[in-house]
């Protein structure tokens, strides 16, 4: 089976790049996969994708830049790229803002699944968020109420375009319900997000030095650190032991300059460390050194890769009490302390419960490790392959029927 993946991909820094990296690394190990082609976004000057890789024991990997964030013609470029490589299956790893931070360009990019399907391969979309649950303002598509209303109507239209794919996978059960009931879609499937790493039992001991409170991600839209810094300021006043706040990651592509502004605005708060972009090789250390991982989100746009990573490293987590997020915790079995979104007092109290009680912190970390270990992304890839095979068989059966009828 030759599989093309339309996605951001490292060293590109667009959202979902890490997910694509881990997904592909496991996809290449599956015996039924003969080649993986990544149709990735164009990189900025000075960066380049790895050369074609035909390492023994792995499916060959080719990466072809095939679209550019913010451009108008991404859907047609992707369609042409698919025509050129002629895969059996195309998987599009998408969220609503994958192709642009502007409405029209972003929406036009979402025509890709429909155009790709028209070229012949089995077409599957992995949709990390749905329009119905996105807070448009916080996702960087804000404006006045009228514009948001128009955007939402357009979003419904483009959701219908996404649903032209042979299968649409989502990571939260509620999304299946919405797409099935609102759009009458019968080919929407629940596919777990999966944990990125298959790690051995983590070492729960923390390094000497201040206790690290860490947040990880791309910040500025719905992941905002102001309340976290204010919560940290309170904790430094109330806690006896030394603390450090580690803000690991970069600006969201939709909010360039956000972290620099925050850093300037909160320059008086001591013991805050901004790591900048965290290279893949440094991710384990960043998580292992953290005592607590905080999710300072004020809305949700889907399941959280960071939550799965935190679980993989056996970390206690502090989470916003948001509908979808709380639901995900229940569905997937994770546990943690919850806070009122954007409320520094509530957030500080939740973090303090883990600082004050190391045994409780460890128990929660161990629990999250078991949950995260439950379904590594390598097994999620098997689910996708099973669906791909099923869809390809359906195609073959349909073609055979047509051929027999013609004879």
């Amino acid at each position: 089976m030759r599989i093309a993946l339309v996605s951001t991909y490292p060293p590109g820094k667009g959202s979902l790049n890490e997910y694509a990296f881990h997904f592909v690394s496991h996809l290449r190990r599956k015996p039924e996969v003969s080649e993986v082609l990544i149709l990735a976004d164009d990189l900025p000057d000075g960066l380049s994708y790895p050369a074609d890789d035909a390492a023994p024991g792995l499916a060959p990997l080719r990466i072809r830049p095939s679209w550019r964030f913010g451009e108008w013609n991404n859907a047609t470029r992707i369609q042409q790229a698919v025509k050129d490589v002629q895969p059996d299956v195309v998987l599009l790893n998408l969220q609503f803002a994958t192709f642009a931070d502007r409405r029209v360009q972003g929406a036009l990019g979402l025509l890709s699944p429909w155009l790709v399907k028209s070229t012949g391969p089995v077409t599957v979309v992995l949709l990390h968020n749905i329009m119905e649950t996105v807070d448009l303002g916080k996702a960087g598509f804000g404006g006045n109420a009228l514009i948001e209303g128009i955007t939402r109507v357009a979003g419904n239209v483009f959701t219908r375009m996404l649903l032209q794919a042979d299968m649409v996978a989502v990571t939260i059960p509620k999304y299946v319900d919405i797409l099935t009931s609102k759009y009458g879609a019968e080919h929407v499937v629940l596919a777990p997000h999966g944990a990125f790493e298959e790690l051995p039992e983590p070492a729960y001991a923390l390094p000497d030095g201040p206790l690290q409170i860490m947040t990880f991600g791309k910040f500025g839209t719905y992941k905002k650190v102001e309340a976290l810094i204010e919560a940290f300021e309170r904790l430094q006043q109330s806690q006896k032991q030394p603390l450090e706040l580690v803000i690991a990651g970069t600006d969201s592509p939709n909010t360039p300059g956000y972290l620099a502004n925050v850093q300037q605005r909160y320059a008086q708060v001591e013991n805050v460390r901004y790591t900048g972009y965290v290279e893949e090789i440094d991710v384990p250390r960043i998580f292992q050194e953290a005592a607590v991982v905080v999710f300072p989100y004020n809305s949700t746009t889907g399941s959280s890769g960071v939550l799965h990573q935190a679980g993989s490293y056996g970390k206690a987590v502090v989470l916003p009490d948001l509908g979808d997020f709380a639901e995900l915790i229940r569905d997937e079995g994770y546990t943690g302390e919850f806070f009122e979104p954007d409320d520094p007092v509530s957030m500080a109290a939740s973090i303090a419960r883990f600082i004050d009680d190391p045994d409780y912190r460890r128990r929660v970390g161990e629990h999250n490790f078991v949950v995260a270990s439950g379904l590594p992304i390598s097994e999620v890839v098997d689910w996708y392959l099973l669906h791909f095979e099923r869809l390809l068989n359906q195609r073959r059966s349909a073609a055979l029927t047509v051929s027999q009828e013609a004879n």
Partner: protein
Amino acid sequence: MELNHRVTDGVNVLELSGRFDAYEVPTVVKWFDAHPDIVNVIVNLSGVGFIDSSGLSTLVKGLKRCRQNGGDLHLCGLQQPVLIIFELTRLDKAFSIFADEAAARAAFKPVEG
């Protein structure tokens, strides 16, 4: 969770009961690991009232193993809450699901030779 294994009319039958979740899957994984050459299996889930993604994933791995060996894995006796999870994930389209063991057994292709 309890696992009972028996061979009926030449077909391996795994009878599971209880919760089939992340804490319980090692029992079933261990069984499949101990039977790498397994060809045809029926998993009777009539005693399972809850299944999570880990349980589903264990069955997916079992299915792949059987198909790689030229056989198949049939499911039977799914309770309504379990069937709903299969439908939500559309894995009901990937597995062959039967009402009972007799139907699951009858659906295996006869072994040639």
